[in-house]
């Protein structure tokens, strides 16, 4: 995983995104480890063009798909799809057009915090937003994360940290 470089690449192309998933959890204070980076991206034509351009030089391919499966992460492909789980030279990157429990980019953005990371302000899904998304996903494995996030939220509310 190359978090700093990934954020820089997306920022430089002015991609509209919110960092979500395990990385957002850790940035909010969680102690859980993650290997991939998840993003919610805006589905406007302009942003889709920017996203395709940003990742062009990083060999985006579908994760867990046969190597010889033809795939091009270009604006047309992004327009036709919604959620993409990619393997790139920057690591495993997931781009979601919608997040369960929250909705599309605008709803996710409304549930995000601005956070200075490596000198640049980025949008990171809030603890409440992460809880909503995990609850909506309804997976048994998310219960640990939900308990931790609720505890974290409680600690931050009580201390004002």
């Amino acid at each position, binding site marked *: 995983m190359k978090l700093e470089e990934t954020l820089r690449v997306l920022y430089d192309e002015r991609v509209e995104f919110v960092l979500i998933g395990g990385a957002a959890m*850790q*940035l909010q204070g969680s102690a859980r480890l*993650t*290997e991939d980076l998840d993003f919610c991206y805006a589905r406007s034509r302009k942003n889709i063009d920017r996203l395709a351009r940003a990742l062009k030089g990083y060999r985006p391919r579908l994760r867990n798909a046969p190597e010889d499966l033809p795939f091009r992460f270009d604006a047309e492909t992004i327009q036709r799809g919604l959620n993409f789980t990619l393997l790139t030279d920057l690591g495993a990157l997931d781009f979601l057009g919608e997040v369960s429990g929250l909705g599309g980019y605008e709803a996710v953005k409304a549930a995000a915090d601005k956070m200075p990371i490596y000198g640049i302000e980025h949008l990171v899904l809030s603890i409440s937003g992460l809880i909503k998304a995990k609850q909506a996903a309804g997976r048994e494995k998310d219960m*640990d994360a939900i*308990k931790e996030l609720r*505890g*974290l939220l409680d*600690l931050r509310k009580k*201390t004002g940290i």
Partner: protein
Amino acid sequence: MNRNMTREQRKLAYELITNPPHGSKLAEAKEWGVDLTLLFENLKLTPTERALKLEQGARALHELRTAGVKHRANS
């Protein structure tokens, strides 16, 4: 280090994780097995320090996974 955290906040957070109020979400998390001291340690860090920790953790996880695959292949 998160320099926005005051000494009072640090003291209060330490008290809360050591002895979470009965019936609180913190107490529930502790009972579930969440290590509250790790959360406190993370909250002491700035977002960039957490990001660095995230990248280091991901690297370690990847190395462990790779070592496991190699070990299984050789055994």
